[in-house]
């Protein structure tokens, strides 16, 4: 096996050890970065939950607790010019893709300079400047948008790609199947990224979906991979490989991330219907344990958590102090003005 540039052919044990240490260090650093992002999402969402409970955030709030590794792992493989379209459960996707924490909290609190000027709220967080084409209140609603975005990437040339996130429940929506077909026909560089948390709102998806995504992908001859969605490294690796292929080969693929919906469908959900609590896997636990096993000091992990808390705290404070959205701005914001075109 040939090594890379500058590496000798005679690899001694010591060198090998040093190299693997270095790789481990790199991996650790990367995993720490992943962990930090996941912590930030978790911390932000727990604050959302608390702010919702105390009435400071209204509306329907779907937290992605348990699914952070998918957001962070997939987004680690994406560039700012890549695009994603998300779901009702879109906080993690948005924050991981680069939506600022301030904009995020301001949006959820309905503030004038929230990400969407307070007009969309949790179900519509978006940041087009970083390629985050919006959470979506319609199950399956973002899938075709992502395919269109992928087609735009393809038509423009270059190697940007799009990712469509959707839940296992969305597999029942016809538009998703239309999109599998369209993307296949047009060889759009899109990843259909299913976050399979086992639930469609209050019903187990097994009672709603009669097929497996694997078999469905096979019907369209689409590359498919099932990934442990609680393992951010595995997610990042698998997504990274798939996305690299999409950059050159310009065709769709399907990935299924097996995840756990740690909380209720939305905040306020009493979850009386739930029976699977025993089997939930929390990616933050998984990642923390991995880091601990690799010898990362507890103080470092605590420092990361403290950083996340501080960042979130600052953003929440900024949001609370920010001015409310104004009706005038909303009234003027229904149509795009001609000049911008």
């Amino acid at each position, binding site marked *: 096996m040939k090594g890379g540039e500058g590496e000798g052919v005679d690899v001694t044990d010591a060198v090998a050890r040093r190299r693997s240490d270095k790789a481990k260090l790199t991996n650790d650093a990367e995993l720490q970065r992943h962990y930090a992002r996941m912590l930030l999402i978790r911390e932000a969402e727990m604050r959302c939950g608390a702010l919702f409970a105390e009435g400071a955030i209204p509306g329907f709030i779907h937290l992605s607790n348990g699914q952070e590794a998918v957001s962070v792992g997939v987004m680690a493989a994406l560039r700012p010019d890549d695009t994603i379209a998300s779901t009702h459960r879109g906080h993690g996707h948005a924050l991981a893709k680069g939506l600022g924490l301030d904009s995020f909290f301001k949006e959820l609190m*309905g503030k004038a300079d929230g990400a*969407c000027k307070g007009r969309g709220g949790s179900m519509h967080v978006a940041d087009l400047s970083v390629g985050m084409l919006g959470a979506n209140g319609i199950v399956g609603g973002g899938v075709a948008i992502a395919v269109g975005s992928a087609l735009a990437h393809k038509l423009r040339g270059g190697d940007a790609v799009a990712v469509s996130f959707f839940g296992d429940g969305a597999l029942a929506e016809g538009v998703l199947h239309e999109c599998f077909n369209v993307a296949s026909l047009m060889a759009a560089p899109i990843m259909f990224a299913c976050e399979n948390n086992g639930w469609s709102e209050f*019903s187990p998806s097994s009672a*709603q979906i009669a097929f497996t995504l694997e078999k469905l992908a096979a019907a369209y001859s689409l590359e498919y991979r099932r990934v442990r969605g609680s393992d951010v490294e595995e997610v990042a690796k698998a997504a990274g490989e798939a996305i690299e292929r999409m950059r050159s080969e310009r065709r769709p693929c399907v990935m299924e991330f097996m995840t756990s919906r740690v909380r209720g469908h939305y905040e306020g959900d009493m979850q009386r*219907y739930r029976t699977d609590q025993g089997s939930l896997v929390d990616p933050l636990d998984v990642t923390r344990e991995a880091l601990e096993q690799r010898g990362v000091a507890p103080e470092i992990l605590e420092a990361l958590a403290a950083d996340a808390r501080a960042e979130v705290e600052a953003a929440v404070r900024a949001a609370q102090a920010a001015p*409310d*959205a104004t*009706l005038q701005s909303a*009234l003027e914001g229904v149509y795009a003005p001609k000049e911008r075109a």
Partner: protein
Amino acid sequence: MSEARFAHAINRALDDALERDSRVLLVGEDIAKAGGVFGATRGLFDKYGRERVLDFPISENAMAGVAVGLAMGGYRPVIEIMFMDFVALAMDGIVNQAAKLHFMFGGQGDVPLVVRTQHGGGLNAGPQHSQCLEAWFAHIPGLKVVCPATLDDAYALLLASIEDPNPVIFVEHKALYAMKGALSEPAPKAELGVARIERAGSDVTIVTYGAMVHEALAAARSLAEEGVDAEVINLRTLQPWDESAVLASLSRTHRLVVAHEAVEAFGVGAEIAARMAQIGFDELDGPIMRVGAQFLPIPFARNLEKAVLPGAARIVEAVRATHG
């Protein structure tokens, strides 16, 4: 008379319909064991079982079409489209199929099908979970459209809708589910197409429906303090709507306000107003005023949603303007 919530009235009507007529089926997303997102079907799965109360996957267009097939097959499906915004996914089944089959097949078959759905703001649910789209359906020959305001209406109109041999769009208001009120005993009855005068008055007619009935009554109370005696008509059914009741009232009051939560432009109120500007023209002593949501998607933020949605204050203003 019993104290209950609006959602209970819906639930009671479904329960009674299931009890009385074995052809009645409930179909919807999370309506069986889970009892529906707003609890309207709670307990019915346990009581009537999986052959009467069917959970459906997140496939709104198929749901509408399947309901048409069930209706043609002798059943009386009551489907639930969880938010009215999601009817956008079921328009083919409802508009191209259900609405037209009886006519298009020369009267060969009926499509006794009820689409329960809920509209409106008040929960900061945002632009894709707050729309009032009843005008879409009122425009379609073959459909009936019903929108209850009170517990008695919710109960009686839902039963009447289920008993109707035609497809009926039955629109509940999400902010009403928790509303407490009286449910009459013995159980109230209602006929589709018949409006009700909720408050008699001689100075102005306020025509409205759904949750806005309560705003109109509040407006009438505050107008009374100004010495203006407003009549409030609750349409209850939007298609067909009770033209003669509105005209009769207008002939007494000579002034007209039409109010609803839906976007004013091209909304249901436009038809009422336009029709009265034709057949009631000679009765009119002032401009017909309309009240509806301003022309923008329903925004999420509390203060924005509140500002956009019409309420009693705007109705009062409109009444004043009929004199202007």
